[in-house]
């Protein structure tokens, strides 16, 4: 009963490097989300998807790109990492959106940019 799985769990990058964070869910959820969590800032939405092949910007999208080629996967890309992107990244999914369904979160990816 995996739920939402994020890989990798930890990563250290140098400024300017690129990487992709993978989120996979096995609950057949339509909606998926990427958040970042920084001390004292709560959860801030980066991008989200309301279905396969769709993506939309959230509150803090700059410096990130996403893709949802398959319903179960939601990828978050950093093209040129910056120290300001050091954070904990959480992926979440829900049955539907409109903010009336619980979101199920993965364990997170702890990313440090040097």
């Amino acid at each position, binding site marked *: 009963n995996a739920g939402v799985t994020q890989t990798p769990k930890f990563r250290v990058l140098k400024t300017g490097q690129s990487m992709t964070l993978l989120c996979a869910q096995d609950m057949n959820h339509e*909606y998926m*989300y990427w958040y970042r969590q920084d001390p*004292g*800032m*709560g*959860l*801030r*939405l980066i991008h*989200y998807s*309301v279905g396969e092949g769709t993506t939309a910007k*959230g509150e803090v999208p700059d410096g990130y790109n996403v893709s949802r080629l398959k319903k179960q996967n939601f990828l978050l890309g950093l093209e040129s990492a910056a120290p300001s992107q050091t954070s904990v990244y*959480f992926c*979440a999914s829900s049955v*539907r*959106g*409109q*903010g*009336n369904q*619980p*979101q*199920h*979160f*993965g*364990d*997170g990816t702890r990313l440090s940019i040097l």
Partner: protein
Amino acid sequence: GQQVMQIPQYQHVQEGEDFTTYCNSSTTLSNIQWYKQRPGGHPVFLIQLVKSGEVKKQKRLTFQFGEAKKNSSLHITATQTTDVGTYFCAGPKPGYSTLTFGKGTMLLVSP
């Protein structure tokens, strides 16, 4: 834009004391959700409130939704060390398929 605010930001209690966190939205909400995040963990959904004035209980936790559907509270009776964590409220962002999370209240319980 919509704002969801929580107070206090942090509270430290002795085991056995009660604890309350408050959530206030700048807009009327169709529902409000509460999540708990243990230290080093991920947010876990606790409950959803939908009706004006609704009160729900989960063992020692009592959740309330305000009459105007703009505020909510979470009360824990007789805290235990297992209650340690950050409690977030979240409400639907109007016109979007997303939630706006409050910044959370961090609860520390000393034995």
